[in-house]
C-alpha cells in the first residue's frame, strides 16, 4: 500500500529530488521534508487560504494538492519573496508599514494570494482586493490594514510610488 514516489520539484529557484508518500500534500511536504515552514497550514481543507503559494505561475492551495502532483513543477513560497540580499518585496514592505499583520499566521497566504492577483490585475481597486482576499481568513480582524497594505503595495508595484 501507498508506495513512495520520487519527485523533482523546484522551490524558489532551487531544485529538490525526494521521495514522498502519495497522501502527503504539498504544504506538508514543504514544511516537513524541505523545512520551509513559511507556508502555514490552517484548516487543511481549502477554506482558510493560509497555505496559498504560487504553483507554475498561479495561486493554489497547497493543502489541496498532493506533493506527487507537483512533480516537475516550479513553486514560489513566502521564503522566495524577498531578494537574496534580504530586500523585502513591496508587498512585504507594505504589510510592515501599514500594520497588515498582527499574529502573522495568515500573512504568507495573504501575500502569496496578492502577488498572483496583482500580477494579473495591477490596477485593482479596494473592492477587487476585498474580493480577491475573500478566500483568505484573518482572525485578528485585521482586514482594514491588510487591504490598505495591498493597495499601497499595488501602487508601488505599478511604479507610481516607492
Amino acid at each position, binding site marked *: *500500500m*501507498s508506495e513512495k514516489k520520487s519527485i523533482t520539484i523546484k522551490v524558489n529557484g532551487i531544485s529538490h529530488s525526494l521521495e514522498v508518500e*502519495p497522501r502527503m500534500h504539498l504544504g*506538508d511536504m514543504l514544511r516537513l521534508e524541505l523545512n520551509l515552514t513559511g507556508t502555514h497550514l490552517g484548516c*487543511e*481543507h481549502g477554506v482558510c487560504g493560509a497555505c496559498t503559494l504560487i504553483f507554475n505561475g498561479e495561486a*493554489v492551495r497547497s493543502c*489541496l*494538492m498532493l506533493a506527487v502532483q507537483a512533480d516537475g513543477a516550479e513553486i514560489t513560497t513566502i521564503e522566495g519573496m524577498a531578494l537574496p540580499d534580504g530586500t523585502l518585496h513591496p508587498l512585504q514592505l507594505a504589510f510592515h508599514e501599514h500594520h497588515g499583520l498582527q499574529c502573522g499566521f495568515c500573512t504568507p497566504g495573504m501575500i502569496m494570494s496578492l502577488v498572483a492577483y496583482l500580477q494579473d490585475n495591477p490596477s485593482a481597486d479596494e473592492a477587487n482586493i476585498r474580493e480577491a482576499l475573500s*478566500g483568505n481568513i484573518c482572525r485578528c480582524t485585521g482586514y482594514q490594514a491588510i487591504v490598505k497594505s495591498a493597495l499601497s503595495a499595488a501602487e508601488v508595484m505599478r511604479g507610481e510610488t516607492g
Partner: protein
Amino acid sequence: MKSAQFDYHKPKNLNEAIALLGRLEDAKLLAGGQSLVPMMNMRFVQPAHVIDVNGIAGLTQMSADVSSVTIGAMVRQAELLRSKVIARDLPVMAEALRCVGHFQTRSRGTIGGSLCHLDPSAELAVVAALYDAEISVQGPGGERVIAFPQWPLAYMMPSVRPDEIATKISFPLWSDPPGYSFVEFARRHGDFAIVAAACLINLDSSGIITKCSLSIGGADQIVHRLGNVETSIIGHLANEEIFEFAGDLAGNMDTMDDAYVSGAYRKRLVRVLCRRVLKKAVERTKSGGQA
C-alpha cells in the same frame, strides 16, 4: 498527514485510466482536487486508489462552432474565466464562474470535476442545467452522451458508472443570443450558494417572452430546471408583474432543510432570486425589455 493511505496512479491516456477503473477496487478519480482532497483530508472518503487524470492529454481542449461550445472535462475554471469564447458565447457561465470558490481554487478546479462531484449548489451545474448541456462519458464499452436532465440521479450522484470517466461537456447555443443572468445568495463571497438561480431569455420585438430557461441550484438535493415556470411565462410581456408571478410560482418548489438553513428560508430565496434573475436577463436582451 491528513489523508488515509492510498495508492497513486497517473495514467497517461484515457484507455489506461478506464482500464485502471475497471481493474481497481475502491478507486477515485482525481481531477482538480478542490472537493476530493478536502474530503480526503477530513477522511470523509478514504479511497484505496487515487487515479490522477491531470496527465491525460485530450481532456483539456475547447472547441466552438455556431451551434455549440464543447469543453474538455479537465479544463480549469480559471481558464474558462479567461476564455474569450466563453465570454462571447456563454457569458452566463463567466458570470457564474466568478462565484465558484476563489481564484486560488479556480486555478485547479475543473468543469468536469465540478459536474461529477455534483454538489447541488455548484454554479457550473446550474449553468449546465440551463443549457441542457450534454456530458460525454467514456467507458470500456465506448462513449455515452448524457443530457443534463438525466445527469443527476440523486444527491451528489451523477449518471456515470464506476468504470466510466467524463471526457467533455457540450453546451448547445441558442440561435438567437439570449439575455442572461446568474445570481446567488451565499453567506460570504466564494462560499457555496444557499440558493443560486440562472436564466436565459429571448423576447420578440414587442417585448413578449418567446423562449426562456430557468435553473435553480442549492434549493433541493439536485439542480432543477423550472419547466413549469418557463412555460407559464412564455407568451407574456416581460414586465415586473410577470417577474413577480414567476418568483411566486418558483417559490412553490420542494426545498430541503439542513443544519443551517430551513426549507422555508430556501423557498423565500428561490422566490426572490428568480424574480431578480429574470429581471436582469430581460435587461440584457437586445431590446433591454423596452418594447
